[in-house]
C-alpha cells in the first residue's frame, strides 16, 4: 500500500461528483453511474423478495401453517421466486459489477453502446414496475415456473401482468449481454489480448452468450402463454391435443441456462477474490477461462433433467442425465483450481477472500447435490421435494449471493473510494456461512424424507427440521442486514481507500478510487498477463 497521504473522494474529481443533479444520474450514459442505478434497483427488489422468503419460513414453523391461507402462501412463494430469479439473481452481478468493472478491467472508456446501456436500465425498471404492480394488486399463484395448463386456464392471479413484466425485463438482459459481447470483442485496450483478460471478464463473456441466446426463447414462451391466457388461443391446450411438455421444454431451455447466468458471474468474482487474497496468479488460467465457456456451452444441453418424471421419454431422460453429469466436470475444474491457487500464496484473510471461500464450499456441496438430482433413480424420488429447494439455494444463495456480497466487499472501496470496517465484514461473512447452512441443510433431509415443495402445510413428522430451517433463516436475515448497515455507515465515515487498498493486480486498481469520469487519464497499454503478482511472476517477465 502506498504511503502517500490519501485524498478523500470529495477532494478529487470523479464520476461520483461529476454532477449532482438528478438529471445527471437518470440521463447518464456513464457505465459506472448506470451500475449504481442498477445496484439501488436490485437491492430494492432483493428486499421485496426477502419478504416473501420471511413469510414462507414463518408459515412453515408449524405443520398446520397458522400465518397464511393456502392462497396467500402460494402467492408468497411465487413472489419470492419471480422477484429473486428475474429481478435480483439474473441482473445481480452482471448489471452492477459487470457494468462497472468490465470497461475498467479491459482498459476502455465505456461500454460499446453507452446509451443502450441506459435504455436497458429503464427497460429493467419498467418490467419491474409491471411485476410490482401485479404483486401489489394481489399477486400470482402459479409458482415461478408458470406450468400450463395451471397458468393458462386455472390460476386466478395476475399472471398476465407478471409475465409481461418478466418479458420486458428479459429485453433488458438481452441488451446488457449484447453490450458486453461487443465491448469485450472491440474495446480491449492495446495489448489486452484474450489471454490477458481477467477471469471476471471471461465469465461475463460466457454469461452474455447465454443471456443473448436463451432469453429470447423465454420471451417467446411467455408470449405464447400470454396469447393462450389473454386471447384464448390454443397453444398448449391438452384438451385439443396440445402438449404441455413442449411448454416445459421451451421454458427450461431458458431457465436451466439461467442458472448459469446466475452462477458464472459469481465464479468470475471468486477468481478475482481468490487471486487477490492469495497475492498469486490463478492456478491454471486457461483451464478456468475455458471452463466458463464450457459451462455456458454444455449448460444449454441439460435442461431436460428438470423433466425426468414429467412424462418425458426415458431415453431422452438418459441423454439429459448424462449431459448433466458432464457439465459438472468444468465446475469441478474451477473448484480445484481455486483451491490450488491458495497453495504457496501470501494469504490475507480479509472479508473478500472469506466470501470467496464461503462460495467455494457452498457451491461444492450444492453442485454435488445437483449431481444426485441428475441421477435418474434418485431424482425420481427427490424431484419436486425440498431436496431440490436445498440444492438450488446452495447454488443461488450460497453461490450467487455469496459471490455478489464478495464482489461488494472487494470493489466497494473502488466504487465509493471509502473503506468499510473489516472486522464487521469478517463477522458478517461468518454469520452468513453459519446461517446459510442452518437454513438449507435441513432441507436436504426434508426432501429425502419426502416433503414436496410448495406446501403451506405438511405432515407433523417434518416439523423439527422445518423449525431448524426457520431458525437458520433468522440468522441469515441478521447477516444480510449487517453489510447494509456498515456499507451505509462507511459512505460518510469510512477512511479513504486509495487506488489499490488490497494490493491487487488488474487495470481497475491502477485508476484512482472512485475512478474519474472517463476511467483512465490515458488509455493504458497492457504488456503483462492477468494476476501478475511477484510470487508467480516468471523469470524474464520482469
Amino acid at each position, binding site marked *: 500500500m502506498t504511503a502517500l497521504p490519501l485524498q478523500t473522494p470529495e477532494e478529487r474529481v470523479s464520476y461520483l461528483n461529476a454532477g449532482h443533479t438528478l438529471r445527471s444520474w437518470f440521463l447518464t450514459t456513464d457505465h459506472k453511474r448506470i451500475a449504481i442505478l442498477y445496484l439501488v434497483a436490485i437491492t430494492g427488489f432483493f428486499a421485496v423478495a426477502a419478504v416473501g422468503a420471511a413469510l414462507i419460513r414463518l408459515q412453515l414453523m408449524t405443520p398446520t401453517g397458522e400465518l397464511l391461507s393456502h392462497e396467500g402462501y402460494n402467492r408468497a412463494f411465487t413472489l419470492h421466486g419471480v422477484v429473486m430469479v428475474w429481478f435480483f439473481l439474473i441482473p445481480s452481478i452482471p448489471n452492477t459489477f459487470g457494468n462497472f468493472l468490465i*470497461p475498467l478491467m479491459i482498459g476502455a472508456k465505456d461500454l*460499446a453502446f*453507452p446509451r443502450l446501456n441506459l435504455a436497458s436500465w429503464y427497460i429493467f425498471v419498467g418490467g419491474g414496475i409491471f411485476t410490482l404492480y401485479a404483486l401489489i394488486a394481489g399477486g400470482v399463484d402459479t409458482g415461478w415456473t408458470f406450468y400450463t395448463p395451471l397458468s393458462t386456464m386455472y390460476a386466478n392471479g395476475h399472471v398476465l401482468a407478471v409475465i409481461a413484466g418478466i418479458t420486458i425485463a428479459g429485453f433488458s438482459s438481452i441488451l446488457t449481454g449484447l453490450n458486453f*459481447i461487443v465491448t469485450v470483442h472491440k474495446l480491449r485496450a492495446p495489448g489486452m489480448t484474450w489471454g490477458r483478460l481477467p477471469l471476471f471478464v471471461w465469465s461475463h463473456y460466457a454469461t452474455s452468450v447465454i443471456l443473448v441466446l436463451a432469453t429470447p426463447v423465454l420471451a417467446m414462451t411467455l*408470449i405464447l402463454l400470454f396469447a393462450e391466457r389473454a386471447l384464448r388461443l390454443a*397453444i398448449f*391446450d391438452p384438451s385439443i391435443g396440445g402438449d404441455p411438455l*413442449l411448454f416445459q421444454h421451451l421454458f427450461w431451455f431458458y431457465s436451466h441456462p439461467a442458472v448459469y447466468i446466475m452462477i458464472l458471474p459469481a465464479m468470475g468474482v471468486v477468481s478475482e477474490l481468490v487471486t487477490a487474497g492469495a497475492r498469486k496468479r490463478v492456478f491454471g488460467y486457461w483451464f478456468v477461462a475455458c471452463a466458463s465457456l464450457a459451462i455456458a456451452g454444455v449448460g444449454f444441453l441439460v435442461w431436460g433433467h428438470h423433466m425426468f418424471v414429467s412424462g418425458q421419454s426415458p431415453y431422452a431422460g438418459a441423454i439429459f442425465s448424462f449431459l448433466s453429469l458432464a457439465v459438472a466436470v468444468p465446475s469441478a475444474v474451477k473448484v480445484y483450481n481455486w483451491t490450488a491457487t491458495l497453495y504457496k500464496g501470501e494469504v490475507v484473510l480479509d472479508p473478500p477472500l472469506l466470501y470467496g471461500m464461503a462460495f467455494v464450499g457452498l457451491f461444492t456441496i450444492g453442485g454435488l447435490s445437483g449431481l444426485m438430482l441428475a441421477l435418474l433413480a434418485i431424482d425420481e424420488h427427490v424431484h419436486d421435494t425440498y431436496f431440490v429447494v436445498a440444492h438450488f439455494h446452495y447454488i443461488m444463495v450460497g453461490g450467487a449471493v455469496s459471490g455478489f456480497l464478495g464482489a461488494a466487499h472487494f470493489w466497494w472501496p473502488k466504487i465509493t473510494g471509502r473503506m468499510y470496517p473489516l472486522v464487521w465484514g469478517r463477522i458478517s461473512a461468518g454469520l452468513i456461512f453459519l446461517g446459510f447452512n442452518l437454513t438449507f441443510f435441513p432441507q436436504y433431509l426434508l426432501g429425502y424424507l419426502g416433503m414436496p415443495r410448495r406446501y403451506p402445510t405438511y405432515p407433523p413428522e417434518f416439523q423439527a427440521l422445518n423449525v431448524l430451517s426457520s431458525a437458520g433463516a433468522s440468522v441469515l436475515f441478521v447477516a444480510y442486514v449487517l453489510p447494509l448497515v456498515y456499507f451505509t455507515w462507511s459512505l460518510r465515515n469510512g477512511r479513504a481507500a486509495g487506488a489499490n487498498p488490497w494490493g491487487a493486480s488488474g487495470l481497475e486498481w491502477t485508476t484512482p478510487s472512485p475512478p474519474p469520469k472517463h476511467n483512465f487519464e490515458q488509455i493504458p497499454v497492457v504488456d503483462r498477463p492477468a494476476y501478475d503478482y511477484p510470487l508467480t511472476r516468471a523469470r524474464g517477465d520482469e
Partner: protein
Amino acid sequence: MSEYVTLREPYAARRQQSDADFLGMYVFLATEAMLFGALMCLTFLYRTQHPQASALAAQHMQLWIGAANTGILLTSSLFVALGVLAARHGQRRTTAGMLAGAMALGVVFLTLKGIEYGLDYRDGLMPVIGHPSPVRQGPAGLFIDLYFVATALHALHMIVGLVVLGTAATLVLRGAKRLPGQAVVVEMSGLYWHFVDVVWVFLFPIFYLARG
C-alpha cells in the same frame, strides 16, 4: 468501407467503431432469430406429433396471398439494399427514395395481410369465444393458432421496421445524419428490415406450404 465513418465515443478508430456497430446488430438479430426460431421449432414439433391435422390446417391458408407477400417483401429488400448502397456513396436523395419505396411495399404487405386475416375470419379460422368452428377442432387448432401468433408477431416487426426506415429516411433527407459519414443509420435500419424479410421467408413454407 470504413474509411468515411464519422467517429464517436468511446471509439478510437473508424474500423473498430464500424465493426462494433455491425457486431452489435448481428448479435441483436441473433436474439430475434432465437425468438422466432423457438416458435418455428414448436410448430415443427406439433407437425411431427399431428401430421395429418397440420396438413389439414395448412390447406386453409391463403397460399396466393402468402406467395404475393413473399415476393413483395423480397422486392422491398432489394430497395433497401440499393438504399444502403446509395447511402455509402453519399447520395442523400436516392437513399431516401429507395427507403420510401421499400416502405411503400411494406405497407402493401400489411394491407394484404389485413385482407388475409379478414378471409381467415370468414373461414372460421379465428378463435371467437362462444362460436366453436369445425375448422379449429382438434390439433388443427394448435397449428392455426401458432400461425396467428407467428404472423401477428411478424406484422408487429414489420410495423417497427416501417418506423425505423421512416426515421432513417427522414434523418438522411433533412441532413440530420450526414452521408456517408453516418451511413451507419441506414445500414442498421437495413439489416433489421432484411432480417424481418428472412423471418417471412421461413414462415411462408412452414405455414402456407405445409399442406402435406
